[in-house]
């Protein structure tokens, strides 16, 4: 049994970075404020890396997201494994050409000659009153794109293991961080190694209802567990961890077992990533479900500023409990 360390997501990612950079001199880091003189990133997730590995490997960039992703792509074509930060997910919009038209497509368009093993770290998530342009969940866009993997871990151990996998993966990975998951502490095995991409985790086993979720929403689902238990509902929580390519096998097995499925994500519900999962479950388990798949997500509006509105915008533990009761009824 391995020693368990107590740490939060920031520390877990940092530990993954240190290991990856120690093990492989080709691993690079770039982004705004990313080196130590600038604080190792706004969340401090990259703290210590430039001091330890040198500012030639850990570079603070101008506020130039196209140049950041472009430099990462080029360095990857040159044999390196860059970990690039786009400070917030909304800012991927200014680098979207580089991500979508280039990073994700160069392997295919070159017939396999090029590979772009970059990891793009980005932070998002409502709950901090940062309002309309700082906390959108756009994983659905990237999941719709071919050639890029989309990862969003909810526990420190998963963050470490999945970050290690992203860095070593031969293809571009988008690694989504959220304030809530970065700051939540948890246990991480001292020898936590890479966790395979594309594999979901049954975070909680249950028999009545399957809840498919990821990222900070996993934490909000966990917060609903007690009330669900009190209502006599045994929920199985499947933390997807990799949104694309997603783990159909695990999800379908759970859904087949319970016959009742809820998908809960922070992204806007409409045309959101939950739709793919719901549609697939209905296709694959036609006639076997007890109730139609319930999708919970944000309403179709920008993230509002006022605390009361932001609270209403998010899928809260109470919403999950209410939806679960309706699914049982």
């Amino acid at each position, binding site marked *: 049994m391995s020693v368990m360390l107590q740490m939060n997501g920031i520390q877990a990612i940092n530990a993954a970075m240190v290991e990856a950079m120690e093990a492989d001199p080709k691993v690079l880091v770039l982004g*705004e*404020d990313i080196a130590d*003189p*600038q*604080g190792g990133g*706004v969340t401090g997730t990259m703290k210590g890396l430039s001091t330890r590995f040198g500012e030639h490997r850990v570079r*603070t*960039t*101008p*506020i*130039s*997201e*196209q140049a950041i992703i472009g430099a990462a792509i080029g360095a990857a074509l040159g044999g390196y494994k860059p970990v690039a930060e786009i400070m917030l997910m*909304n*800012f991927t*919009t*200014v680098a979207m050409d580089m991500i979508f038209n280039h990073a994700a497509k160069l392997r295919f368009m070159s017939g396999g000659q090029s590979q772009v093993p970059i990891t793009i770290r980005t932070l998002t998530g409502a709950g*901090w*009153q*940062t*309002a*309309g*342009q*700082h906390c959108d969940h756009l994983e659905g866009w990237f999941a719709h794109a071919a050639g890029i993997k989309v990862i969003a871990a909810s526990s420190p151990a998963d963050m470490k293991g999945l970050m290690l996998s992203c860095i070593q993966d031969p293809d571009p990975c988008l690694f989504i961080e959220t304030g809530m998951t970065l700051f939540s502490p948890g246990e991480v095995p001292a020898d936590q190694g890479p966790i395979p991409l594309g594999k979901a985790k049954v975070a909680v086993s249950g028999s009545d209802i399957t809840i498919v979720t990821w990222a900070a929403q996993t934490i909000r689902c966990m917060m609903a567990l007690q009330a669900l238990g009190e209502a006599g509902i045994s929920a199985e929580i499947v933390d997807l961890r990799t949104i694309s390519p997603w783990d159909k096998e695990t999800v379908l097995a759970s859904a087949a077992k319970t016959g009742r499925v809820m998908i809960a994500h922070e992204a806007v519900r409409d045309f959101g990533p939950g739709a793919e999962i719901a549609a697939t479950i209905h296709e694959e388990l036609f006639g076997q479900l007890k109730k139609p798949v319930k999708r919970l997500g944000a*309403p*179709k*509006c*920008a993230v*509002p*500023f*006022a*605390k*009361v*509105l932001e609270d*209403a*915008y998010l899928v809260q533990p109470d919403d999950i409990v209410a939806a679960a009761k309706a699914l049982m009824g």
Partner: protein
Amino acid sequence: MAEQSNAPKPDAQALLDIFRRMVRIERNDDAIRTAMRRGRITAPYYSGRGQEVIPATISHFLNDDDQICTIYRGIHDMVAKGIPLRPLWAEISGKVDGTCKGKGGPMHLTHPETGVMVTTGIVGSSMPIANGLGWAAKLDGSKRVVVAYFGDGASNIGAFHEALNLASLWKLPVLFVCQNNGFGEHTRYEIATSVDKISTRAVSYNMPGFTVNGNDPDDMYAHVHAAVARARAGEGPTLLECKTFRFLGHLIGDDDFYMDKAEKEAAMAKDPLPRLRARLIAEGHASEADLDKLIADIEAEIADAQEYGANSPTPSRDELRRDVFAEEMPA
């Protein structure tokens, strides 16, 4: 900095007007920070403390129907422009009587009535939109001018380049005002910017560009006077790089480990606000009592606004369905 012989100089009235705007900015900033410390306001807040001269002088030249597009660090720009304080406070308090019904918050304060057209949280994005407002002003046959505020860090992003090129080609009545406070978040100017002066970049667009002492009302006055006149005359845009210093870190709560202490202290010792006050008195434009009264009036206005914001109701969750489109979204 740039040579301006025969440059117009602010008279007593202009200096007093600039001072009044600066005091409103600074007192309001102070009140916001106090309210935050007391937990009365919960919001990310990017203070413009130290940068008051820039929007105060610019707004001195602006008419009510002139317009600004500003950024997350922009409350000083809006207050200078004349946004009413009551709805401002209600907005940053997340209340229904806010300029944006509490939906935008401090980073997206908007008040078209006083020309506060867009406040963006995306670095660089004030500029392309200001162009469109300038185009509209031109199509209207009006003399309106539009100010695009942005930071030094923003001069390295693509939108800057595209916007300045278009504005020059189309001779749009836009002032591109870079508030160069030496930092983009925690990153020093020279780590992010390959050129000594941002004003140099105007050359790339065949546009006049000047580096101005953004803490000096005289230097600002001369350059803004010329740039606004140029824009109103249909001669096109100007790039003004206004050098200043950010006193309070990137956002309230950030610690300043990345700043050179001596440099910061030296900059703060030259705080433009007490300097202008001293000058007004030294030059006989006002008495201590006059200025105390002016400040007290402003403080009363702010206290009233704060009270107003605190007492305004919180929005109902139906607001999530409103203002997405003109028609309300179905429940």
